[in-house]
């Protein structure tokens, strides 16, 4: 893992720069609203900082979002993999709480002084000595991974072609919510573990793949730097769905259009907080000017490192990353892929100039081939 020394991240004020906005239109750090034509006096860029270290998995954000935005229900299917029965972000779920069950990390145990034998007088291993029974977690997880879900959207929550990856997860899948006891190992023993929860949402990228490829102009950049679909314009071409490097945007069946988080554009315009942040009981979801959130996140990260939570890292906060930084970024306690996030997302548009050049060369080759074939000798 890369060391977690605090990085100096440029502020939005630094990014609101004529030169950056001119030169980094396709890729690189910039403040998106002025680039989109709102001028240098656009409102400050607004976003979310989701601090997963204080998420309690209550799903109030999912509910509040559905209530406020009138998002259709997604049924009561059980996915059989954890307490996550939403499965993924879809056109009908604009917030999604992920649940991951893991044994406590080696570093953490060493930190607590438990690695060398016992409790160090402070912490007791969770569930030690409780009744035990047989466990079926790995196979159950593999089975669960091949379960899809009818969400009323496409592609929605499709089954996984990689049950093997679920098995990888499943050695750390400690039996919730299975019929066996939490923290139980094959062999009947029980172990210390941790439970990671994370409320996922549209990242409102600085360079948004969905926005770049939209052929109708239905997706647009707001004055707050967020990315919103206009439902009266979208014709359901589905390009945005393949364009998103995070797998966020999705198509509603029947309706045919693409839907995703709007960062409560309507509420923002009235100076209100988005519904999910408002409903979050632990301030895991924090809303505000991105500058302020990045500062707050850096302080939180330092604090967590100071108290020994060495796995803590920020995700999507860096304007020099592959998407120019996210408008909604996260504090994670493990690698991004464990939460279902891509470890190093890059906006496809980064390579677009090269793609057009290659296509141009191929087009010329084709024209030349036809010309030569006909100019050649008559048979």
């Amino acid at each position: 893992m890369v060391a977690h020394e605090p990085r100096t991240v440029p502020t939005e004020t630094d990014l609101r720069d004529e030169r950056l906005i001119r030169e980094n239109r396709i890729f690189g750090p910039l403040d998106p609203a002025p680039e989109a034509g709102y001028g240098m006096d656009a409102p400050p860029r607004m976003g979310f900082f989701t601090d997963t270290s204080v998420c309690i998995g209550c799903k109030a954000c999912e509910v509040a979002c559905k209530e406020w935005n009138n998002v259709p229900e997604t049924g009561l299917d059980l996915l059989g993999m954890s307490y996550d029965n939403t499965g993924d972000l879809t056109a009908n779920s604009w917030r999604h709480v992920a649940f991951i069950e893991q044994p406590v990390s080696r570093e953490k145990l060493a930190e607590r002084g438990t690695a060398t034998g016992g409790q160090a007088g402070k912490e007791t291993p969770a569930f030690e000595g409780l009744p035990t029974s047989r466990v079926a977690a790995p196979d159950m997880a593999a089975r669960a991974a091949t379960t899809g879900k009818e969400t009323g959207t496409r592609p929605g929550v499709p089954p996984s072609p990689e049950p093997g990856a679920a098995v990888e997860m499943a050695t750390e899948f400690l039996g919730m919510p299975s019929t066996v006891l939490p923290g139980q190992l094959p062999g009947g023993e029980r172990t210390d573990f941790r439970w990671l929860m994370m409320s996922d949402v549209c990242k409102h990228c600085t360079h948004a793949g969905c926005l770049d490829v939209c052929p109708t102009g239905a997706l647009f950049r707001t004055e707050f730097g967020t990315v919103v679909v206009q439902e009266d314009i979208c014709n359901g071409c589905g390009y945005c769905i393949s364009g998103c490097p995070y797998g966020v945007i999705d198509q509603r069946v029947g309706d045919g259009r693409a839907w995703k988080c709007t960062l409560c554009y309507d509420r923002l315009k009235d100076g209100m907080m988005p519904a999910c942040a408002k409903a979050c009981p632990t301030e895991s979801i924090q809303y505000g000017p991105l500058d302020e959130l990045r500062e707050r996140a850096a302080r939180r990260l330092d604090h967590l490192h100071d108290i020994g939570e060495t796995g803590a890292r920020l995700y999507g906060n860096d304007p020099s990353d592959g998407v120019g930084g996210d408008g909604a970024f996260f504090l994670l306690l493990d690698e991004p892929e464990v939460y279902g996030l891509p470890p190093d997302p890059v906006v496809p548009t980064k390579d677009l100039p090269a793609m057009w050049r290659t296509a141009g060369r191929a087009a010329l080759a084709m024209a030349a081939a036809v010309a030569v074939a006909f100019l050649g000798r008559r048979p």
Partner: protein
Amino acid sequence: MTAGEMGSMGREAASREPSGRPPVGERFRAFQESRRRGEGKREGGEQPMVPRAEFRSYYGRPILKPPVWHHDIAAYLFTGGLAAASSMIAAGADLTGRPVLRRTGRVTSLAALGASTYFLIHDLGKPERFHHMLRVAKPTSPMSIGTWILAAFGPAAGVAAIAEAAPLLPERGPLGLVRRILPPVGRGANLVAFVMGPPLATYTAVLLAQTAVPSWHEAYPYLPFVFAGSATAAASGVGLIAAPPEETGPVRRLAVAGAALELTAMHKVEHELGVVSEPYREGRAGQQLRLARRFTVAGAFGALLSGRSRILSALSGAALVAGSVLTRFGVFDAGKESARDPKYVVVPQRQRLEERGLERVEKVTTPEAD
């Protein structure tokens, strides 16, 4: 169970921990290690039936949303390319005095264009809003660029095809005038279609590559050549089927050139993209692409060797068309598969991060070169 209860039970349990036994975390990891090394069953434990993957993920679930495009779009990749290359061949045939080849090219182009329009609109979530594509022109959206390429190509190819109806008109009167005007108008329109043909045949490669779909995106240096070659081979194939031997000389040469371009570029797609080449070789997509290769090779040799035999020429032409169709469907399906599987997202991105980590170290240790 409340946290308090758990805590009190845990404390009682602590006193029962047999001395000399490693703590539970250690035992758990030893157990994990033993499974990783594939050692035998532990007492009372169960081995997973499914082999373990070599990357981490969220319960093995897809990270990306697989494309929602149906096979309409795969079919359009073929018909769009066919329309483009057919118009180009028709223009060549027109200028070099090959009337049957010209008529075949123009009519094929219009028919393929009609099919393309149907496929494109049918695949929309809201087909009645197809004209919303005309609201904007966006260089970052190949679909928007493609809309405008089609808007320029379509009428030109249409007029060129309609000009083929000239001999059916009466020789006298106002329609007689139309009859005389149509051929030069058709030639002009056909030349416009010739110019718009290569962009039409190749922009679809950018359409696929300008996505987060790993196997499409990473293939961007080769896909335009695959599609240009595939379109050329298919349209040459149609020419071989319909035109008499004395007119097919150019399309035989073109068929070979197109097939060679397609096969060379496709070989690179299938082998030079690291892990994201896999979907092109495996499963349904792999089958389609292997079959496509056989058809294309057979069609190209047939085009060279069939000489004056109409039947052999037509069979070669049909093989080239089949090869092109299968190539498009194979490429389409391989991309979808790569988006469905978290492996093709996590593994290359992790590699990229590791390489960048190395780069960072090198930058620190080596002084600036320039």
